[in-house]
């Protein structure tokens, strides 16, 4: 065998060793669960997870199922996990949340964490990803967790929306029977399919040379019973993007408000409405007080596939959710969401999406069974 062939075999062998020298996926993930947590960590099933070394990088392909046990006497409705990857931490936070759960006391439940981390070569034995519980929401709307990501508010809003939507479907089933429920669901699916979509790029704190932009005032949708009123607002609009929104809020409720989430809908020259983005704002509004929210943000809105900018002809804002100072939340009623602009532009809530998926995948009987499970 010539020296060249021997060298080739050695090189191939070395490459194989390098490819197989990955870390144990189960050890590459560290689960951080405080001792006082209302959950017990049962185990991690790494599934098809694997780590490989490619060139100078380590790739962790994690397809894991984390299993927890509800260690409390309350039913769990949602969980949010904080995902922290070494060297990815600066510049943001990542999370995986599972709302719409129904976990009985003592029962176990899975949370799937699928991620891929590619980073410069890892140190052997060192965990690549930390997974920590950021929040757990209970049936009583009680909450546990460090709440570094605002999970308390987010999980509570999803749960309140979920109860509203299940109640809506259950009421239709009760009053009109299964056929009425089917028609409602099919109608929502058709609207979702017909809902126009945009590609959206958000840039924060950006200093840029702007093309000619003009101020455009918001039209605000009156949402009955909303504790916060959107009084006036304006944003700078050019053909390609909209930036620096400014909105004035008034607390019309008798309680303090600490967070408002507004929806932002844009209308193109053809009169089509698109949901562009949410506009969240931490505020400290006493009853009757006003506040002005300014965002140093630019949104570039493009048509899917073509990437062409939409010509923005108008903007509409509305209140999506409100968090009071005592931690309770408000969300719009189904009737309020039935207004034509919202009906055509807004997508389903997470629970509505889950229920629609049950109908699509398993049929009407499964949907009815699911609705009854929560009654």
């Amino acid at each position, binding site marked *: 065998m010539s020296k060249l062939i021997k060298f080739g075999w050695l090189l191939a062998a070395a490459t194989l060793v390098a490819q197989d020298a990955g870390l144990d996926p189960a050890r590459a993930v560290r689960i951080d669960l405080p001792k006082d947590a209302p959950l017990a960590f049962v185990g991690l099933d790494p599934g098809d997870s694997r780590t490989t070394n490619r060139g100078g990088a380590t790739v962790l392909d994690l397809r894991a199922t984390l299993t927890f046990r509800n260690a409390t006497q309350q039913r769990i409705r949602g969980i949010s996990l904080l995902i922290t990857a070494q060297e990815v931490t600066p510049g*943001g936070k990542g999370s995986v949340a599972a709302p719409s759960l129904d976990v009985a006391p003592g029962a176990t439940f899975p949370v799937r964490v699928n991620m891929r981390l590619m980073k*410069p070569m890892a140190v052997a034995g060192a965990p690549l990803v930390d997974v920590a519980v950021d929040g757990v929401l209970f049936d009583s709307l009680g909450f546990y967790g460090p709440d570094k990501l605002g999970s308390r508010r987010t999980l509570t809003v999803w749960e309140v929306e979920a109860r509203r939507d299940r109640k809506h479907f259950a009421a239709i089933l009760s009053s009109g029977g299964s056929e009425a429920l089917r028609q409602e669901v099919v109608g929502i699916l058709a609207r979702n399919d017909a809902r126009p979509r945009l590609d959206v790029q958000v840039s*924060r704190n950006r200093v840029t040379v702007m093309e000619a932009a003009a101020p455009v005032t918001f039209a605000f949708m009156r949402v009955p019973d909303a504790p916060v009123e959107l009084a006036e607002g304006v944003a700078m609009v050019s053909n390609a993007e909209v930036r620096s929104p400014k909105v004035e809020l008034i607390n019309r409720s008798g309680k303090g408000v600490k967070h408002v989430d507004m929806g932002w809908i844009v209308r193109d020259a053809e009169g089509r409405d698109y*949901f562009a983005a*949410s506009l969240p704002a931490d505020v400290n509004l006493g009853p009757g007080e006003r506040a002005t929210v300014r965002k140093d943000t630019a949104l570039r809105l493009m048509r899917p596939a073509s990437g062409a900018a939409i010509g923005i002809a108008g903007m509409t804002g509305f209140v999506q959710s409100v968090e009071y100072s005592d931690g309770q939340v408000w969300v719009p009623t189904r009737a309020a969401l039935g207004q034509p602009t919202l009906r055509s532009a807004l997508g389903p809530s997470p629970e509505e*999406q889950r229920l629609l998926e049950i109908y*699509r995948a398993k049929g009407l009987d499964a949907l009815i069974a699911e609705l009854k499970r929560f009654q």
Partner: protein
Amino acid sequence: MRNEQHPDVRELALLAGGDLPWWRKWQLTRHAKGCADCQAELGALKDVRREFARAASELPAGLDWQRLEFEMRANIRVGLAAGEAIRPREIAGRWDWRAGFAVAALATVVVTGWFLGRQNRVSTAPVASVQAGYAMAQSGSEGIEWKQRSGAVLTLMAPAARPVSYTVNTEGGLSARAVDEAGQITISHVQID
């Protein structure tokens, strides 16, 4: 590799598409040269690939293959359920060519869906992105890709072959929402500071 240890058909499909790492490609190519079955399978996959490429060139731009695959699977499920409801009861164990045809058709649809979905995963453009300074997150073919200046990339992956809806907020947040095959909804979120 001995002939009786045939490679998985998915690996052969990857080989046909030129998507295998070079070492595995060399192994499988070597095996196929000495294995008539795998050679035939490989040839068929290459034919299918060429046919897809030809057919795809005749389709309108902007088709959402992932969604289409999902629709096909959902419709197959509904169709099978309906078929089961009206199927006349037969003697167990009797072979029916129609059953074989149905299985073959189903397998073709699933493989086609997987293949097209895979093609889509390579070519899907971001539909949502958030950026602040050097930090950036964007929707990718498999979920939210979170890129750092250090070169590290963390992808929070959505369930495969499921429709994913993305939303952004003006604080630099990007969310991906999908329902997995078990019916559990999962919401991945990246908040750029």
